[in-house]
Structure formats: C-alpha cells, structure tokens
C-alpha cells in the first residue's frame, strides 16, 4: 500500500521536479545568529503575508454574498451579518485581519528600518516593501468604501474633496474617481474593482518580487555595531555566514509558525468577541445627522485636516504625502551602506520615535475630536443645577438663551458639551461684562458673531447669566483699562 502511494507521488515528482526547484528555496540557509532571541524580530513579514492570504480567502467568501451596487450594498451587508450562516464571522475576520495586516506591515517595516536591513544589497526589497505598504493602505481605504454606510460614504466624500483641491485637473480626477458627477452606483462599482481586482493584482506581483528578492538576497543577519555594511566585502562575508546557516524550512520557520498561529488566534478571538464592523447608518445623502469618522488608521489624518492652518491646508493635503512617500522610497538610496545597528544610528531611532509620537498624539486627538461641535449638546445637555440655583429671573432667561442659541454645541458647562470653544464654567473669572458682550455680538477667535441672531435684551440676559459663572470665592475678571462711566 505504502509503495503504491510512493509510486503515485513519484509519478508526479518525476514530472514536476519540485525537489530540484521549490525544495532548495524552502531550505535556503539563514544566518545562525538568528538562533538567539533576536530571531523573534524576523517573524512579522511572514505573518503579514499570512493575513493577506486570509484576506483573500475571506474576501472570496464575502464576494459570493456581497452585492456591489449602491442601491443594494447596504442591505446585502445586513443580510451577511444577520442571515447568511457565519456571515458575521467572515466579515469580522476580514475586518480584524485587515487591521492586523496594516499593523504588521508597519511593524515589519519599522523593524527592517531600525535594524538597517534595507541597506546594501537589499535596497530594492525595501523599495518594493514601501510599495506594498501603499497598496495595503489602498486596500484598507477601498475596503472601507465597500462597507457602504454613512461613515464610508462621507469618508469617500472627504477623499473626493481632497482630490478636488489638486490644481487644474482636480475636477476631472474627481469625476474619474466617482465614475460620474455624483457618488453613486458607478462609484461603488469602481471601488469594488479597485479592491477586488486592481490593487490585489498589483499586490500579488509586488509581493512575488519582494519574496524573490528576500530569497535571492538572503535574510539579513542581526546588526553588529562593529560590522558596518561595505558593498565591496558584504556579499563575501554574508555568504561565509551562510555556510553554517540553518535551513529556513522547517528550522527557522518554526518561530514564524508560532507567531502566525498566535496572530490567527488573536484575529479569530477578536472577531468572535467584537464581531464585524458596521454597517453604521445607511449612506443616505439627505441624512444630515451623521458624524462621519474614518477607520482608526486614518484618524491621525482626520486630525491633521482639522488642525492645519487654512492657508497651508491645500499644500499640506497635496504635498506632504508626496514628500513622505518619496522619503520612504529614497531611504535606502541615501543610506544604503555603513552602520546598521540601531545603537549607532540615533537619527534613525529618533525618527521612528518622533513618527510614533506624532501618530499617537494625532490619533488621540482624532478620537476626541475636540474641534467638532457636539450637535445635540444644546438640547441634550441641561445647564447644571448648581449654576442656576438662586439666580434672578433675568439670569435664568440668560441660561435658557445659552441653551437655545446652541452655544453648548461648542462650549461645555462643567465639562459637558462641545470642546471647540472654552469651557464656560468659570468664564466670569476670565472676561469682564464688556468683553463678554463684545465676544457674543462680534464673535472672533474662531467664534461666530451672534449680533444678528440676538436682540439687545437677549444679549443682556445671556451676559448676566455668564457673569455668574465663577467658582465660589473667586473674584470676577477686571478690565485692565479703566473706563470712565460717570457720563
């Protein structure tokens, strides 16, 4: 029986000759230095690739039930969530695996950068890797669009508005991207084609080249400060190391196997516990009561768009991405040799820390979005009781005006309400009566002017109330200019 099976297999091997082609590739030698704990830093690339494969498998599954039509996509998502057997789980895995892929690609890239693995002779591997990062981000954005809900719809609108700012050809590019003059069926179908055919196709080819280069040029050895990269001698030294190397499969691969297995468990665990993302509200262009938020990886960009000075904004939107991407591509061209160890490359380490700090701070701001008015605060957040206790009728009228004129959408009382303007809980310690009147009527410092929306008595009542807003025992603000009111 056994010999019959062997005979059967040999029949194929005789024709395929895999032992001469694939097997040596799988057994390609890896420097012995990876045997120490540092070897655990070499598992991120293979895990990111595994999640890509998982994306393809779950993506094919979703492709069988998702309807890429603007009129039906939303309902088909609900159908997948609630009616298709395990549809919710497939959507959840696709979502969490996508998140994991974005994270791992960035972690992999950071590790390669910090360990100088992009230097000679692996520059092209890095450059293709940057392309893979861009394609991954492209997959993330187009995937977000296919989740055809209000967040996705208006998020796409933001993307369209950004592209519309490109000088001269902006409007044409917008129509090309939308497939017409509006965001509708042709737009969704376009993004379906991008997400399912175009970007994965390019990703496949780029990944193939990336892997080819990884195998041809070998896994980089862990950096040693005393051994900077000299293109004249590097290859010779490296090949010397390989003579005592370990075969990739199965020896070195065991670490990848462990990390891949754990990652899959995390992805499946998160999917089972937290479930799929959305769809949120339907993508109805006539529903104004939405507060669109991008997926988490784009939150820092969301913050940048809110915080940029308006005069520089178009430049920031259009030029900064070009500079950042160009810098990433050119890293190995400008520092393709020399020191690899992060211990001797303080600028590289600082660059990573600075990037992480900026990303995290902007991300945190993106989560809080203090610049956005709280649309329902004026009717949903009452004035705290302590602030109206014992007030005169006029002051109470002022408190009512504060609510009715939607001031609370931007101004908090006792921490509740919008954060776009200052919290008014102790405004009377900061502004005098005259300053309050001027601020309400004329606005300024990012506040609209309310002069046309309120009559004299309303302003008077509102300011009378605001004057009471100071903690017990604090003095009211005093004008630095002495005004003579005797006449």
């Amino acid at each position, binding site marked *: 029986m056994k010999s019959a099976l062997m005979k059967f297999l040999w029949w194929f091997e005789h024709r395929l000759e895999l032992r001469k082609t694939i097997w040596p590739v799988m057994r390609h030698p890896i420097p012995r230095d990876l045997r120490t704990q540092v070897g655990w830093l070499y598992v991120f690339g293979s895990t990111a690739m595994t999640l890509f494969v998982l994306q393809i498998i779950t993506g094919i599954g979703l492709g069988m039930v998702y309807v890429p*039509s*603007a*009129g*039906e996509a*939303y309902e088909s998502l609900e159908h997948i969530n609630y009616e298709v057997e395990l549809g919710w789980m497939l959507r959840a895995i696709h979502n969490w695996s996508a998140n994991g892929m974005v994270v791992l690609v960035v972690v992999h890239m950071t590790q390669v950068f910090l360990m100088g693995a992009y230097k000679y002779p692996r520059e092209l591997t890095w450059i293709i890797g940057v392309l893979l990062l861009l394609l991954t981000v492209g997959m993330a954005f187009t995937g977000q669009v296919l989740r055809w809900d209000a967040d996705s719809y*208006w998020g796409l*609108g*933001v993307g*369209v*508005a*950004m592209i*519309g*700012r490109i000088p001269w050809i*902006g*409007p*044409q590019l*917008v*129509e*090309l991207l*939308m*497939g*017409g*003059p*509006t*965001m*509708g*069926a*042709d737009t969704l179908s376009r993004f379906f084609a991008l997400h399912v055919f175009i970007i994965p196709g390019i990703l496949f080819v780029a990944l193939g080249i990336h892997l080819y280069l990884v195998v041809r040029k070998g896994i980089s050895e862990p950096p040693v400060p005393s051994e900077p990269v000299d293109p004249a001698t590097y290859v010779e030294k490296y090949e010397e190391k390989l003579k005592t190397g370990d075969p990739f499969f199965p020896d070195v691969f065991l670490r990848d196997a462990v990390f891949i297995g754990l990652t899959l468990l995390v992805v499946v665990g998160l999917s089972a516990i937290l479930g799929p993302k959305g769809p949120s509200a*339907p*993508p*109805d*262009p*006539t*529903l*104004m*009561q*939405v*507060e*669109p938020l991008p997926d988490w990886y784009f939150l820092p960009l969301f913050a940048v*768009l*809110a915080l940029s000075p*308006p005069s520089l*904004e*178009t430049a920031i939107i259009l030029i900064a991405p070009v500079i950042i991407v160009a810098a990433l591509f050119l890293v190995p061209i400008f520092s393709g040799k020399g020191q690899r160890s992060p211990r001797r490359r303080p600028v590289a380490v600082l660059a990573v820390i600075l990037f992480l700090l900026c990303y995290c701070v902007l991300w945190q701001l993106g989560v809080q979005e203090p*610049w*956005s*008015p709280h*649309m329902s605060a*004026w009717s949903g957040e009452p004035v705290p009781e302590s602030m109206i206790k014992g007030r005169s009728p006029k002051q109470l009228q002022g408190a009512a005006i504060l609510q*009715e*004129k*939607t*001031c609370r*959408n931007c101004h908090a009382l006792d921490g509740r309400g919008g954060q776009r303007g200052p919290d008014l809980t102790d405004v009377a310690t900061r502004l005098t009566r005259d300053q309050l009147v001027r601020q309400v009527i004329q*606005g300024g410092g*990012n506040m*609209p*002017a309310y002069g*046309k*929306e309120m009559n004299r008595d309303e302003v008077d009542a509102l300011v009378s109330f605001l004057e009471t807003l100071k903690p017990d025992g604090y003095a009211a603000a005093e004008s630095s200019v002495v005004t003579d009111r005797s006449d």
Partner: protein
Amino acid sequence: MNTASDDQQANPNATTRRTFMEWCSWLILGVGSVATAIPILGFFLGPVIKPKSDEWVDFGPLDEFPEQMTRLVDVLNPLRGPNDGMTGKTAAYVRRIEGEKFQIFSPHCTHLGCPVSWFQESGLYMCPCHGGVYYEDGAHASGPPPRGLYEFKYRIDQGRLMVLLGHLPTLQDPGSAESTGKTA
C-alpha cells in the same frame, strides 16, 4: 535554411523586401493595438470626455418656503443612475429671504465635503467633521472651511421653485450659482 545574410548575398533586393515586411508586421501590430486601445481608454476616461450637466429640479410651490426661514429639501438627483438606490437622492438647504429672493445651499461643507447641519435657533450651519461653521447667508463663520457654502442657481417657474443642481460640488467645481462650463 537561408539566413538574412545568405539572402543578401543571393539577392540584394531581398533585404529591402524583408525589411519592408518587418516594418509591415510592426505596423499591423501597432495599428491593431491602437485600434483596440482607443475605445478601452475612452471607456475609462468616459466621465471626463462626456461629463453630464446639471439639470433643473422642481423644489415645490413657493408657499412651502416661509420667508426668513431655512429648510432642508430632499429631491432625487437628476443625474442619478438606475442602480443608485438611496445615493440617488440629494438635498439642499433653501433659505427664503423675502418674496422671490432665495439662497439655495449645498449641504456639503466647503472644507472637505461633510454634511452640515442647520440650526434655526442660532442661525448657523455646523459641520460635524472638522468644526466648520457658516452663517445663515452661507458666509464662513468659523473653522477650517476656505470659503462660504456652495450655492445653486434657482428660478421661479409658474409659482414653483426650480433649482439647477446635480454634480457634487467641490472647491474648483462649485455649485451651479458659480460654475460656468458645466451647467446646461
């Protein structure tokens, strides 16, 4: 078997004949490729080659719009396609100043296109995304928007308010009240 140089020795004219045939081969491949590429490229560039123009939409009789009030009107987008579903709808804020004087605003924030909400109480439009705020007349009040709200062209036709709209307004291709080339 004859090679090119054998031919040349045997018959000098063969070279020119062979060269001619070579060029013809390339030419046929080229013409065939271009003939195939033109319609395909045309298809991909279709939205730009033949852009659709905005169209007049009936917003209803004038008495549905009280003077000195602003209200949101939902309509079907005249440029919608057969599969657009709810995305084939569109909306505009109608402000009736007095008599036949109107302002029709696109709800898309001029900063990055998010939908602005109208607050009659304070006479302000507020954007939920990046905090843009506009006055009742569409002028920029606060926040990052680079200009006031986009406006649509309107006319009164037999006691009904007609509005010219369709395309998604963006900074360089604003609403029909301003854009020149794209309106019908």
